[in-house]
């Protein structure tokens, strides 16, 4: 019987792939948006936040962007750059989408941007934060727009903030890959430019589960510890640091404490400080409404992944309002988008001339408290300082900034390390 089953099922599976090869039908007033997020694999939870954020805006406006009916096509990029490329090509060639939105990892952003160039299709990146996409390599990607951030964007004001706290010596411990280099590098540059010293840089591999070997090596004469963790590392590191009896202030990159990881964290992170362009605890009417609606719908606090995709959808809608619901073509769309200033959930945003957002950077402290009328005490990223309208170059001269190499393991060099 089992063999019979296999004989029946096998060909069905093989045939199924081909039989279902139906293309999308194009309507007159239709805006087709291809969305790439990892919906399976280890990044599936982040991918869900991304899709939920975008979908929530679509639901609010009933998928109607100024008269254009939005066709929202989600594809699973599986957290792999070359799968993302394949899926992007599927969206462009088969579904004939007007634009691609999404991509989680920096490497996926780097993989998708050239596709947008070769296929002459608009690509909007709400999450992938690799600095050079809107810096040294921008010229290669005329159809690329970022609605999220560059990795080092929040780090620059944060370096200044660290100086203002009176920190003189800081040890950094950051995930050992490009995103980590850029977040830590931006912090180091700004911190050292205002007189601070980074005296040690530790690079645990991405996905490190045991920080036991790293924590004892942290130099004891440091005034504070700067961490840059991603995913499960964010949960593990503060636990082990607290268990080791750490008394130094802990500060870190945005992803070390964003709302994607915060609800799973313990009380050991209370008092830790991090910068980002969004905090769910932002006390503006727009954000309160957003958090409440999101929480009702998905039963969790929105992370920046949800917020940035929600805002991206809103941004696209605003552009379509200007054109009266007509697709203006990618070049014209970019021009319209660049000339816009929007008041969004995260605050005022606009694009700089290199198509990266200029936005508020919030310095946030983890606190346990009740917010927005919820009756339980929870961890929130309370905003303690706002740096308004921060661009990707901070206060630096753009030309000089672009002359220096992209932040890496070796840049800026660790002058004060022994």
């Amino acid at each position, binding site marked *: 019987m089992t*063999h019979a089953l*296999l004989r029946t099922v096998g060909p069905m599976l093989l045939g199924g792939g081909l039989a279902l090869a139906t293309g999308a039908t194009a309507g007159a007033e239709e805006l087709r948006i291809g969305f790439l997020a990892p919906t399976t694999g280890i990044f599936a939870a982040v991918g869900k936040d991304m899709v939920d954020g975008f979908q929530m805006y679509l639901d609010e406006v009933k998928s109607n962007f100024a008269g254009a009916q939005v066709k929202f096509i989600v594809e699973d990029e*599986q957290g792999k750059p070359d799968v993302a490329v394949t899926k992007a090509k599927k969206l462009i*060639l088969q579904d004939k989408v007007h634009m691609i939105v999404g991509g989680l990892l920096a490497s996926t952003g780097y993989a998708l941007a050239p596709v947008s160039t070769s296929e002459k299709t608009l690509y909007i990146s709400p999450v992938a934060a690799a600095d050079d996409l809107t810096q040294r390599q921008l010229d290669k990607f005329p159809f690329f727009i970022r609605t999220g951030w560059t990795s080092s964007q929040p780090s620059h004001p944060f370096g200044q903030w660290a100086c203002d706290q009176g920190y003189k010596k800081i040890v950094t411990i950051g995930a050992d890959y490009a995103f980590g280099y850029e977040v830590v590098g931006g912090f180091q540059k700004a911190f050292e430019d205002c007189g601070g010293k980074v005296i040690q840089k530790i690079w645990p591999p991405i996905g490190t589960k045991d920080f036991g070997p790293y924590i004892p090596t942290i130099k004891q004469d440091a005034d504070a510890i700067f961490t840059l963790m991603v995913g499960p590392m964010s949960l593990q590191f503060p636990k082990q640091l607290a268990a080791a009896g750490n008394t130094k202030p802990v500060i870190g990159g945005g992803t070390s404490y964003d709302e994607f990881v915060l609800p799973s964290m313990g009380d050991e992170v209370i008092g830790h400080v991090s910068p980002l362009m969004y905090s769910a605890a932002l006390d503006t009417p727009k954000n309160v409404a957003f958090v409440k609606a999101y929480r009702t719908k998905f039963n969790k606090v929105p992370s920046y992944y949800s917020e940035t995709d929600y805002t991206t959808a809103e941004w696209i809608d605003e552009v379509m309002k200007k054109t009266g619901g007509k697709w203006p073509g990618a070049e014209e769309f970019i021009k319209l988008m660049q000339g816009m200033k929007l008041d969004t959930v995260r605050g005022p945003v606009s694009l700089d001339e290199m198509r990266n957002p200029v936005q508020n950077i919030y310095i946030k402290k983890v606190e346990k408290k009740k917010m927005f009328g919820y009756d339980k005490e929870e961890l929130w990223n309370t905003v303690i300082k706002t740096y308004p309208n921060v661009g990707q170059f901070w206060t630096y001269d753009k030309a000089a900034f672009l002359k220096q190499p992209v932040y890496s393991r070796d840049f800026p060099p660790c002058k004060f390390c022994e």
Partner: protein
Amino acid sequence: MTSRLKISVVIAAIAALAIAVPFTSSFVILLATRALAFSILVMSLDILLGFTGLASLGQAAYLGVGAYMTAILATKYQFGLGYDFWLVVLLGILFGAALAALFGLLAIRATGVYFLMITLALGQCVWGLAYRWNSLTGGDNGINLGVRPKFGIDLSDQVTFFYLVLALFALSLFAMYVLVRSPFGRSLAGIRERELRMKILGYNTWLHKYIAFIIAGAFGGLSGVLWAHTAGIVSPDNVVLTTSVDALLMAVLGGAGTLVGGVIGAFIVIALREYLSTLVPWWQYVLGAVYVLTIFYLPSGLMGLPERIRRRGGALGNGNSGEKLSAAPS
């Protein structure tokens, strides 16, 4: 089934691909190209797994070397974008072989699960290099190739590129088929069945395995060159353990020791993972079910299916042909 019949089936299948694929959607052409490029790697692994009895978990390293070499030459030196593409193909084969020659010195002394582990470790070394040697490999971000080569024909045209990959695939299949049918290939099968006996018969089994390892590496390098231009991006993701495991699973799924089995495996897995996933969110269950059902009911892979059906039919009376399933290529 006579081997002549099998060969004609394979030739017919390749011809069918060549004729049918260009008429499908451009997304399907892309997937078919990817499957063909990856198939060469799976077949190269099959030489070790199916014909020599060495299960390697580091085959992606050779794909990685070929792919990174192609990408680095193309982006840093603008080399390999014209007629010199053929030189890159040759270099890819040589680099793959050279790396295998190096790794083989360490790996071939081990057998069974130890061979598995040492190839895994060596494969991860290459991954580590790809991930950490930022100045050369771009680290985590990988390398974008930009344009495909142009030499009289323009490979950025999807269909043209598909034919090029198909041609190189067919050549590789032919070369590997000749190899496994040669006396050398027969001795490899002998080593797979019983190494000690081959030693006693006077064969230098170490050398045989070493050469097989190098040949597999060479084809791995070739598949890397094609993979780089197919995907347009090379990243540590191409060299990571799961890519090696994918290749191994594809070979087992289709049927180890059959060469074309790996190709079928590659097509099925890529179709499920990259095509079915555009249609349904539960594609992973289908992929899992295919693996589990195959291993439960078709231990010799999907290539064992016709044999299985024939044996159940039974009436044809060629009962003993089913006994040497794995020895007969294609």
